[in-house]
C-alpha cells in the first residue's frame, strides 16, 4: 500500500510544505510542492536576516500547508508520516518548522522524522529522475552550502568529501552582484549578464587548485576579492566597468572549479553518477560545463529542474519517503533542531 509523506522545510528564507506518495516499489511521486519565500524582505539588507526569516516562517507555515493539501487534493488524515528539516540552517527559522511538524505529527498520530536539509537537496532528484544509483556523487551548491558528498545510501550513508573553506558559491554570487550593482540574490542577474559577456575576458583565480591545496575543498573568498580589486582598479583608471565581461569571467571561474573538482572526485572514486543540486544548480554555465565534462568523463549527470533545486518542502518529503522506505526509526517528539547538523546524520 502506498504511503503519503508530508515534508516541512524552514531552514532559511523559504517556508516549504511538500507532499509525496511513496509507492510499494520504492519510487517516490511528487504530489504538491508549495513554497512561501521571504526573499524580497531580505533584498534591501543584501542577505538573509534571521529574525525577518523566522517571522515570515511563522506567518506562512499553516497557509503553505493548507495550499499543499489543496493542490494535492488530499486531507490531513491521508498523511502517513511527516518529515521536517532538523538542520543545518538558521536556529530561529528551523525552530518554526520543527515545532509545527511536531504538532502536526501529534495531532495526526503519525511518526515524525527530523531529517537533514543537505540530504534533502540530493533526495529531491529522485522525484524527477527516479532511484539514485549507489554510490553517487553529489555537488551541493547554494547560498549557504558548497559541498561534495559521496552518497552510498540516501536514507542513511552520506559522507562529505570536500566543502568550501570560506564563502559558499551562492554567497560569492551575492557579493559580486552587489559589487556590480546588480540586484540580490545575485545568481540570476549575474547569469543573465554573463550571457552577453566574454568568459575569457578576465583571468580570475581558481581558488584551492594549487598542488598543495585540499583536492576536493573549495574557496570563493579570494575570487570575490579578486573581482573587487579588478573593478576598483578599472574605476581608478576612470573606465566604465564591463559588467557583462566581469560577470561572465567570474561565473566561468566558479563553474570551472566546481565542475573540475566534482568530475575528478567521481572519476577517482569510480563513481558513475553526479547529482548537482542546491540553488546555484540553476546556473546555466554550471550545468552546461558540468554536462560537457561529465560526458567527456563518461559520468551520468543529474540536475533536478530549478524549482526542485532551491529550498522547498518536496525535497524534505522525498527524503522522508526514502527514510520511511528504509525502515528507519522515527525521531522522538522532544528532539531539538540542530543548526550545525552534520551531513552524515541523515535522520535523527
Amino acid at each position, binding site marked *: 500500500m502506498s504511503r503519503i509523506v508530508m515534508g516541512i522545510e524552514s531552514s532559511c528564507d523559504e517556508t516549504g510544505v511538500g507532499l509525496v506518495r511513496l509507492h510499494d516499489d520504492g519510487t517516490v511521486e511528487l504530489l504538491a510542492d508549495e513554497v512561501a519565500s521571504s526573499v524580497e524582505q531580505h533584498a534591501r539588507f543584501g542577505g538573509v536576516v534571521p529574525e525577518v526569516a523566522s517571522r515570515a516562517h511563522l506567518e506562512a507555515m*499553516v497557509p503553505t500547508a493548507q495550499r499543499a493539501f489543496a493542490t494535492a487534493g488530499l486531507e490531513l488524515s491521508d498523511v502517513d508520516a511527516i518529515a521536517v528539516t532538523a538542520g543545518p540552517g538558521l536556529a*530561529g527559522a528551523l525552530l518554526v518548522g520543527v515545532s*509545527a511538524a511536531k504538532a502536526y505529527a501529534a495531532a495526526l498520530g503519525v511518526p515524525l522524522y527530523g531529517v537533514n536539509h543537505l540530504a534533502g537537496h540530493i533526495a529531491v532528484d529522485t522525484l524527477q529522475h527516479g532511484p539514485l544509483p549507489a554510490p553517487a556523487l553529489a555537488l551541493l551548491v547554494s547560498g549557504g552550502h558548497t559541498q561534495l558528498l559521496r552518497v552510498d545510501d540516501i536514507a542513511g550513508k552520506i559522507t562529505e568529501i570536500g566543502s568550501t573553506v570560506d564563502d559558499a558559491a551562492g554567497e560569492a554570487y551575492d557579493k559580486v552582484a552587489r559589487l556590480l550593482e546588480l540586484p540580490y540574490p545575485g545568481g540570476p542577474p549575474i547569469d543573465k549578464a554573463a550571457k552577453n559577456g566574454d568568459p575569457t575576458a578576465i583571468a580570475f583565480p581558481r581558488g584551492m587548485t594549487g598542488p598543495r591545496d585540499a583536492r576536493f575543498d573549495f574557496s570563493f573568498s579570494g575570487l570575490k576579492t579578486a573581482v573587487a580589486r579588478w573593478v576598483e582598479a578599472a574605476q581608478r583608471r576612470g573606465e566604465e566597468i564591463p559588467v557583462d565581461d566581469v560577470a561572465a569571467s567570474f561565473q566561468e571561474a566558479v563553474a570551472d572549479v566546481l565542475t573540475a573538482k566534482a568530475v575528478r572526485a567521481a572519476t577517482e572514486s569510480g563513481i558513475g553518477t553526479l547529482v548537482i543540486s542546491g540553488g546555484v544548480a540553476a546556473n546555466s554555465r554550471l550545468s552546461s560545463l558540468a554536462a560537457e565534462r561529465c560526458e567527456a568523463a563518461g559520468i551520468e549527470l543529474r540536475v533536478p529542474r530549478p524549482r526542485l533545486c532551491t529550498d522547498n518542502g518536496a525535497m524534505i518529503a522525498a527524503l522522508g519517503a526514502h527514510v520511511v522506505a528504509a525502515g528507519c526509526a522515527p525521531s522522538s517528539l522532544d528532539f531539538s533542531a540542530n543548526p550545525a547538523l552534520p551531513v552524515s546524520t541523515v535522520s535523527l
Partner: protein
Amino acid sequence: MLVLAIDTATLAVTAGVVSVDRETGAARPLAERVTLDARAHGELLTPHVLDAVGDAGHGLADLDAIACGVGPGPYTGLRAGMVTAAALSHSLGVPAYPVCTLDAIAASAEPGEPFRVLTDARRREVYWADYDAEGRRLDGPHVDKPAELTPAARVLDHEQPTPLGIVEAAKAAILSGAQPDPLTPLYLRRPDATEPGTRKRVSTS
C-alpha cells in the same frame, strides 16, 4: 468544553488543559506541564501538550479550543508556541484564540486596586501593561526601560502566565463562539538589521 492553553512568551514552556463550563463560564484547570527553560520551547512544548492532555484523561481529539499566548516575549521560542497552536488548530479543526501574555498574567491578579504587569524583555527592558481594578487593560503592551516608567500603584511580577490565566483571558472570545482573531505575535520591536552602507574597498592603494 475542553481548552488547551499554550504559552512560550516567557522562559517557561507552558501547556495545560482547562475545562470551561459553557453555561456558567466557570474555568477549572485539569492538568498542566510547565518547564522553566528558555532554550527548550521547541523541544518540550508538544511533549508537554500530549502529557497534559493525557493527564487530564483525554486525547487531542477531545479538545474544543486552543488559547495561545502571543507575547510580547523576548525569546525566539515565542514562535514555537504560536506555530504549535496554529498547526494543532489546522490539524484538529478547532479554533485557536490569541491571548496577550500580559493579559494572561493579569487574569491571575487578586481583585482590588489597579495594577501593572511587568515581564522581562531582556536587553535591560521590560514589557508592561496597566490594568484597572477589574483587570481590564488600560494601557499597553509596551516595551521600555524600567527607569522610564511612571510609578504604578501595584505591580504584579508573576514571571509567566498559568494555563488557567491564559484561558481566562481568552474565555469571552471562546464562549462567544466568534471566529478567533488571527494569531498575530506581539513583537513590539523591529528586527535587528541594518541596511548595508557603502561597500568597503578591498584595494589598499
